[in-house]
C-alpha cells in the first residue's frame, strides 16, 4: 500500500510540474485534470470519500470543461488549424500569380 501511495504522490508532483512548465495550454489543462483525478484517489486512501467525490466532479470534470471553453473562446485551440488555413490560402494566391 505504501508503494502505491508513493507512486501516486510522485505522479502528483510530476503532474504539477508539467502543468506549470509545459508550453502548450491544452496539455497544461489535461495534466491538471490528471492531477485532480490522482488527488481524488489519494483522498480516498486518506479515508475522505466525500472529498474524493467532490474533487473528481469539480476538479476533474467541471473546471476542466470551463478551462476548455475559455481556450475555445480565446481561440487557443484552433490556432494551429487557422495557421494551416492561412498558409494554404497564401500558397493558392502565389500559385495564381
Amino acid at each position, binding site marked *: 500500500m505504501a508503494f502505491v501511495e508513493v507512486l501516486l504522490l510522485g505522479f502528483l508532483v510530476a503532474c504539477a510540474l508539467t502543468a506549470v512548465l509545459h508550453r502548450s495550454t491544452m496539455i497544461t489543462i489535461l495534466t491538471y485534470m490528471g492531477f485532480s483525478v490522482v488527488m481524488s484517489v489519494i483522498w480516498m486512501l*486518506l479515508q475522505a*470519500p*466525500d472529498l*474524493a*467525490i*467532490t474533487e473528481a*466532479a*469539480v476538479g476533474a*470534470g*467541471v473546471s476542466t*470543461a*470551463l478551462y476548455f*471553453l*475559455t481556450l*475555445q*473562446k480565446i*481561440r487557443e485551440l*484552433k490556432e494551429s488549424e487557422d495557421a494551416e488555413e492561412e498558409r494554404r490560402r497564401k500558397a493558392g494566391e502565389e500559385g495564381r500569380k
Partner: protein
Amino acid sequence: MNPSNRNRVKAFFDWVDGEEWCAKTPDEVVARQEKKPAHRSSNDLDAYRRFRRLNQAVGALFCITLAVVLTMVVVNLPLFGDPSNPTNNEVSARYIERGIAETGSANLVGGMILSYRVFDTFGESSVLFLAATCVTILLRRDRKNTTSRDLRELHSDGLADRKDKDIVLRTAVLLLLPVSVMVGFYVMLFGHLSPGGGFSGGSILGGGMILYSRTFGSDSVRKFFNEHLYHLVKVVCLMCYGLILIYYVFTGSNGLDNHIWLGIPGNIISSGIIMPINVLVGFEVACTIYAFYALFSEGEM
C-alpha cells in the same frame, strides 16, 4: 422629475455602461478618447528596463522565500493520524461521542457540517449564489450588449448551439448520462447516510447536464431547464435553506424544544433538517454549475 435630475440619472446609467460620465457633451468624449499618449523618449525606455529587471529579481526572491517557508512548515507539521495532534480535542470528541444521537445522521461529516455548523454552510451557499450572480452580470448576452459581429463570432467559434455529430461521443454520453444523473441524485439524497452530500451530488448532476448540453446542443437542455427556471430554483432553494436555518437557530438559541423529528439513524427519512438541506443545496449547485457552463459558452441559458 426635473431636467437636472434626469441628467444625473442619465449620467449614472452612462457610468454603469462604461461611458465617460464626467464629460458633458459627446464631442468632449471623443476628444478625451483621441488624446494621443505622450512620446516615449529613450530615457523612459531605460527606466522601464531597469524596472523590469528589478521586478524579476524581486519576484524570484519572493518565490524562493515562499518555497523555503512552506517547506519548513510542511517539515514541522504533526504526523498524520497521531492521537496527540492538536485537532484531537474535546470538540471532535463530542462530535464522535454524541453526534449520531444529536443529529440523527449516520454520516458524521454530513451531520457535523449541516447541523452543528449549518451556519457556515449557509455562508458557503450564499457565496456560490453571489458568484453565480456575478458571472451572470458579467457574461450574460442580451439585445443591449450584443452586436451582429458578436453573434457571427459565436457561430464561427462553434460555441452557439453546438451539436456534436461524433458517434463515439454521442454513444458514450448516452451510456454515461443516466449513470451520472442517478449517482448525482443518490449522493444528494443519501448525504446523511453515506459519504457525499448536497455539494458533491449537485456537481455530479451539473456535470451530467454539461455533458448533455455539449453533445445534443443547448436547445435540448432548454426544453426542461431555461433561464426562468434557473432563477426560480436558485432563489427558492437558498430561501428555503435560510428559513430552515432560521427556525433551527431560533428554537435552539431560545431553549425551545426542537420539534424536528430526528428519526432512527440509518433510515432514509431521518436526521431532521439534514436531508432537505442536502437536496436544496444539491439543486442550487447543479443549477449554478450548468449556468457557469452556459454563460461561458453562449452567454445565455
